[in-house]
């Protein structure tokens, strides 16, 4: 009896190992939930990214940084439109000052750079 129970428990445990997923609500439930919807149409600095730059970048890149200032639209635009700009790479790799951004912010930033950083 004990052996049978042991086998059952071990099988149940093995089953739970197959039940592991690495999901997040942004990816799999956004279509069901308007709260999670991400605005990706006509992404602009004023409409979508001003808050992102102000809260995540402007405190350090405040105009005193010689190569990369992100404290206003003109500075952010000129940095984002440089040839081979690393703005998105630095942000998406999440290795810059441990700033962690939501998937929506990353998506918007990528679209904004690709569409000429308007």
């Amino acid at each position, binding site marked *: 009896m*004990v052996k049978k*129970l*042991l086998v059952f*428990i071990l099988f149940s*445990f093995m089953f*739970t190992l197959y*039940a*592991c*997923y*690495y*999901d*997040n*609500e*942004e*990816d*799999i*439930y956004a279509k*069901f*939930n308007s709260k999670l919807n991400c605005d990706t149409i006509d992404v602009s600095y004023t409409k979508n990214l001003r808050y992102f730059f102000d809260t995540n970048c402007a405190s350090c890149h405040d105009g005193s940084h010689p190569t990369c200032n992100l404290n206003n639209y003109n500075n952010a635009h000129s940095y984002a439109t440089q040839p081979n700009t690393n703005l998105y790479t630095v942000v998406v790799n*999440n290795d810059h000052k*441990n700033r*962690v*951004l*939501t*998937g929506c912010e*990353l998506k918007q930033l990528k679209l904004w750079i690709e569409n000429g950083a308007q």
Partner: protein
Amino acid sequence: MEHNKTTTRFIIISFLFQFTLQISSYGQDSINNKETEYTEHTFFNTRIADIHSIETLERGVLDVRLAHRMGRISSGVSEFFGLNQASSQLGLEYGITNNLMVGVNNNTLNKLYSGFIKYKILKQSTGKIVMPVSISWLSNTEVQTGKLNYPNDQYYFSSRLFFTHQLIIARKFSDKFSFQISPTLVHKNIVETRADKNDIYLMGLATRYKIKRKIALTGEYNVIFPHQIYSNFNGSLPVNSLSIGIDIYTGKHTFQFFITNSVAVDEKSFLTESTEKFFKKGIHFGFNISRLFNIVNYYE
């Protein structure tokens, strides 16, 4: 170069010396025919306050459990200092062998059902076999049966599942003092944002100090390692859970009374979703009552 050689020689000699000493001590043991003495009752119960302790139930023992976590003590007279609100857990746990136990629990918060398996891998012992620590393994699965936030029931069943795995290492330093660490992994099949980690690593620290033969002070602290959780629960980021309490052991009953900053009783919730700040009026009263029944011996 010469210095390196001397160091190497010194290391080899000391190693050999130690090895010889160990061999000779084994020899003495066998001559004295020393028995192995296993340490018992490192903790009074299978729980400290919230987290599991090293202990497992003996074979054929059924543990009927009731646990409550009340509201904020600071909520005042109108809420009877938190006692008017409660989240509770009912549990049935059973010892299949002396080292292996299983259990099922029902939690009122988030309507969670959980099942776990705990196995004692090593026992602290002296005598013929010397083992400085006891080690147990815990695997816990939780199913959230409460309503999810996604409308029209368009969700995956996997989003309801949570897993907790814990390696529990404990040592009874003296008859009075025991200490335990438990590296923990909580896996959530779904998290709120991409930034949040599905695998959350923690370290549990727990201790017991006996003040009387059957009364002990207990404490536990579960540390969430940084850069894993970025989403708010109930409006603020999760904090480490802390509990301080007292255990009263009567043989068949164990009463555990404590103050804690976690509202939930189930593993994943108190470990990764406690948002109350212990030192900022976020203290809750909680208790566990455990009653043991000898099922196998009773019918034999």
